[in-house]
């Protein structure tokens, strides 16, 4: 309980929304605020968390190299094509992460709203970009590759929610301060994402927003109402609109990925089917690192969303289990250190970022194992993608920055 009171004392002093300070701790907060500098290395960062990030990143890079080996060879005539790029991105990302960990996360209060608006701008911009297979999800950065604005949007939502909830923490039970602003923000973001369309990002962002509101203390009846409404909406879309009819074939393919009912279905389930072949081929101990057969063009783009299938094939059940445990430990540690952060903003921001990673991991693995229908979600630290890796590591930098204020045992 001592930790709780520490956290309570750490309610931020500055805020855009004119938050009231808890009077009892006012002098102490002021003193803290005075010490604020842009880079402040007051406490040490959480070494176990850093260690877990680096371990996962190294394993992720090795596996990405192995998974992309054949694909790179056949498509770019260079087996090192992806790993060379990803290696550079990882180096940049780690540097950035360490740098950000020295950065006082409280400054982010100021950036919350601008970042949200910036992400909205990008979401509108991306809609104007030329479509790729019927969707507008990527903005090209020339030689740097391309990136998904939805990555920024995720961070923006976590940041804005952490910002607003921490400011209005005591009023979260009310509709006006606890529900309305968030519904508006989430609604706009979701609409922009659906416009791309980008269902998986929408799902993640809505889930993330809901979890933050839940943790933030919104009354449960609002959730009941919201889920009822969303459920009804999905039902309506699936039942009565043509645009979502593709979802139906997706469900059929999900229920039976080995279907040969039609050529079209067989093609649609190709990726899932080959993912299951890869996972199944791994067995208990796997075929050995680099020994995947499914990566030889059977599993399309094995370095992206379905990389976990290749991990399972090469490292087996044991290897996959170790990686899942590493992810679980990362989430556990991330949340634990966030809960022990000095203030509500740090707590909420850290939890939000870690939960975001957790959600992506769970959904990605669920897709690879065909536990849920196929949708494009990448696996943090593993999937190929420069900007997303850099953004991820930057986010982890924020969590590390929070960890510096955390009262958790850091070794």
């Amino acid at each position, binding site marked *: 309980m001592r930790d*709780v*009171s520490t*956290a*309570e004392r750490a309610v931020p002093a500055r805020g855009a929304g004119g938050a009231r300070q*808890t009077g009892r701790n006012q002098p102490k907060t002021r003193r803290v605020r005075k010490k604020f500098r842009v880079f402040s290395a007051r406490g040490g960062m959480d070494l176990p968390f850093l260690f877990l990030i680096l371990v996962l990143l190294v394993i992720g890079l090795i596996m990405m190299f192995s998974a992309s080996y*054949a694909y790179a*060879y*056949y498509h770019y005539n260079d087996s090192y094509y992806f790993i060379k790029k990803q290696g550079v991105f990882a180096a940049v990302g780690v540097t950035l992460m360490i740098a950000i960990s020295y950065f006082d996360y409280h400054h982010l209060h100021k950036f919350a709203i601008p970042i949200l608006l910036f992400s909205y701008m990008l979401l509108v911009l991306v809609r104007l970009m030329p479509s790729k297979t019927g969707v507008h999800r990527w903005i090209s950065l020339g030689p740097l590759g391309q990136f998904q604005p939805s990555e920024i949007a995720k961070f923006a939502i976590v940041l804005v929610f952490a910002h607003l909830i921490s400011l209005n*923490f*005591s009023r*979260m039970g009310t509709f006006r301060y606890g529900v309305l602003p968030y519904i508006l923000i989430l609604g706009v973001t979701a609409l922009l994402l659906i416009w791309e369309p980008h269902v998986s990002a929408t799902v993640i962002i809505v889930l993330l927003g809901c*979890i933050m509101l*839940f*943790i*933030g*203390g919104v009354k449960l009846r609002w959730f009941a109402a919201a889920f009822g409404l969303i459920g009804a909406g999905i039902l309506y879309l699936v039942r009565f609109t043509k645009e979502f009819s593709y979802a139906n074939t997706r469900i059929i393919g999900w229920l039976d990925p*080995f279907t040969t009912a039609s050529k079209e279905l067989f093609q649609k389930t190709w990726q899932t089917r*080959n993912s*299951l*072949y*890869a*996972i*199944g*081929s*791994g*067995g*208990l101990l796997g075929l050995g690192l680099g020994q995947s*057969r*499914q990566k*030889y*063009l*059977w599993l399309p783009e094995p370095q992206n969303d379905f990389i976990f299938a290749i991990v*399972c094939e090469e490292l*087996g*059940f044991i290897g*996959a*289990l170790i990686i*899942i445990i590493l*992810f*679980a430990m990362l*989430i*556990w540690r991330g*949340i634990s250190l966030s*809960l022990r952060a000095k203030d*509500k903003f740090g*707590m909420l921001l850290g*939890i939000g970022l870690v*939960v975001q990673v*957790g*959600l992506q*991991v*769970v959904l990605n*693995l*669920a897709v690879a*194992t*065909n*536990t849920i229908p196929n949708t494009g979600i990448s696996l943090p630290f593993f999937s190929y993608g420069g900007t997303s890796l850099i953004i991820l590591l930057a986010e982890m930098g924020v969590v590390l920055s929070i960890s510096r204020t955390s009262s958790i045992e850091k070794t």
Partner: protein
Amino acid sequence: MAKGTTIRLWRRTVLTLLLLVIGGFGTIIFSLVRLQLIDGPSLQMRAVDQYLKDTPLTAKRGTIYDCNMKPLAESATVWDVILAPAYMDSKKQDIIASGLSKILGMKKEDILKRCKNKKSYYEILKKKVESDTRSQILKFKNDNKLTNEIRLVEDYKRYYRYGAFASTVLGFTGTDNQGLAGVEAEYDNELTGTDGRLVEAKNAVGTDMPFQYEQEVQAKDGNSLVLTIDEVVQHYLEKNLEEGLADNNVQNRCCAIVMNVKTGAILGMAVKGDFDPNNPFVIADKTKAAEIEKITDSAAKTEAKKNAQLEQWRNKCVSDTYYPGSVFKMITASAALEENLVSESTPFNCPGYLTFNGRKVHDWKRGGFGHLTFAQGVCKSSNVVFMQVGQKLGTNLFSKYFSAFGFAGKTGIDLPGESRSIFCSESSMTALDLAEVSIGQTNKITPIQMITACCAVANGGYLVQPHVVSKILDSDGNIVKTISTEPKRQVVSAETSRRMCKILQEDATTGTAKSGYIAGYRVAGKTGTSQKTELKGKSEHISSYCGFAPADDPQVAMLVFYDEPHGPNGYYGSQVAGPTFLKTMTEVLPYLGVEPKYTDEELQKLDGVSPEVVGKTVAEAKNAITKEGLTAVVYGSGPKVISQVPGPGKNIPKEGTVVLFTDSKSSAKTVSVPKLKGLTLAQANRTAAAAGLNISIAGAALTSSNAVSTTQDIAEGTKVAPGTVVTVTFSESNQVA
């Protein structure tokens, strides 16, 4: 309150964490356990299935040899042209389509259509192209820098080197090298062998995986068959049968079997109106093919073609049933002799007909033969005598011997499509039936049953197993199996057999079967002429001859039968089928090494040998020739003989003429062969002498004074050297039944 809300934050965070870690990861781990540990092996199998490209390696089909190891059917390597459209872009598609259309003679559009099937790695474009086409394709590939797009996969093609030869025995194979008829079908499992396979790991675009995985299961080539068929015997048989088919204007094909009487080995089996096994689907009968071509309705045309194919594939020797007619009398006679109901000298009376249940059954000679012995009854082929013999036997004994001689069941010959006989059972047999079955009517049997029973009559009473395969060899030539030649049972005693041989030899010497007589070879035989009573309102006949030689130690039996002869020789077995038997056996018996034994009477009429006089002076030569009892005729004015016809050592008839040429101008002289058919022996001799030719006589002329010549081996009008020997076959004009 603040404290409360913070506790709530903690509680809800921990709840979220637990949900995420335990609920989320728990579900994933559960899925992984299911996928990797439970379904793993089956998923892995399906995965492996998808990378392993399995190419069949065709086993070579075994060879079919005749009894002297001459190959009759062989498989040779050919190539299947396989396209892999997955590797082709539209430019390559066009190059390939136009290039291959020229080489393979196919339509460009058709090939292009196959090339468009982008998903495929295995489009069979053309099967079984031969090596020159293959080299053209290889050159085309090389010229256009093509690799995987076109592949040539080894296959085998069946070659029957003698064409339409023994085709009903050999049968033929289909496009997948499967046997469809004859021994090809009967021994398909032996001949086929086991296909091997080449398994290679491939990536999703069909090229090799970077790691090597290749496993080859070698094909096991098929076993070879050694037939009992002798290519030489078969050749004689087919040649003579073909002639008989043409001479007698046969409507419903004909067939013949030559069989070893002691082992049941089929030495020759031919059906005319057969096919070329190299092109079994082509209608071999030109007239029939032309008729079918004329049909305009396509459905009717297909139907007609199908029927014609089925007909030409049908092995008449084993698949057709017929009334054996008088040939069957040898069975009735054997049964009666064995049961001691008659002897050679048992007297019979033949009034020309017998009455059963108020119905008269006539003999073939309306007036009857009057009084005659049993042996004479056989030689005259008297129906009345045999109806009486049948009565003596009764239904019980007749049926017993009918079954014992193998007529009640299939012979079990190793050829497909053997028919069952259709016969009167003992219980349903009336007196009229008994009379008719005794003379070979009413019961329908197969030719193979008839000759097998005939062998039993000849060989001391043993019913042998007719068969066409003697040995099965593996691909290295080791014997895998030898077919047993053990007889099935003894039907009649050796004594009965010996007596029957004597009676039948008499028949073939002086009786109705004498058209099969061959001097020195002691032929025994029986003719048969049966009416196809099942054809209502039409008078069609089956003419057959069944005999064996030599009668004192039977070696070879032969059955020949013509179905619906409409030729100038009529329809009696002696005139239609007899000559074929005669010609074939005349060639086959010396070939098989059967020693001739001449009677004095035969020796008198036997041909002599032309002495060697070339190089001698004309006077010396004349002297030498006269000493042999021959006449010399000299052409030219030279002092010495430079050539002679017939040549030295060649056969020449007794009292024949040797023509001597003394200069090169004279040796170029030729004469035209006159018509020697339809003449008596004396007329034929005169005509030949007038033309300056020798004639060698064959057939009934040696034993009968009223025989008429039916064939000549050199056609009328042919230019030949004077003195050339023309063989003329005689048969008795009023021979019957």
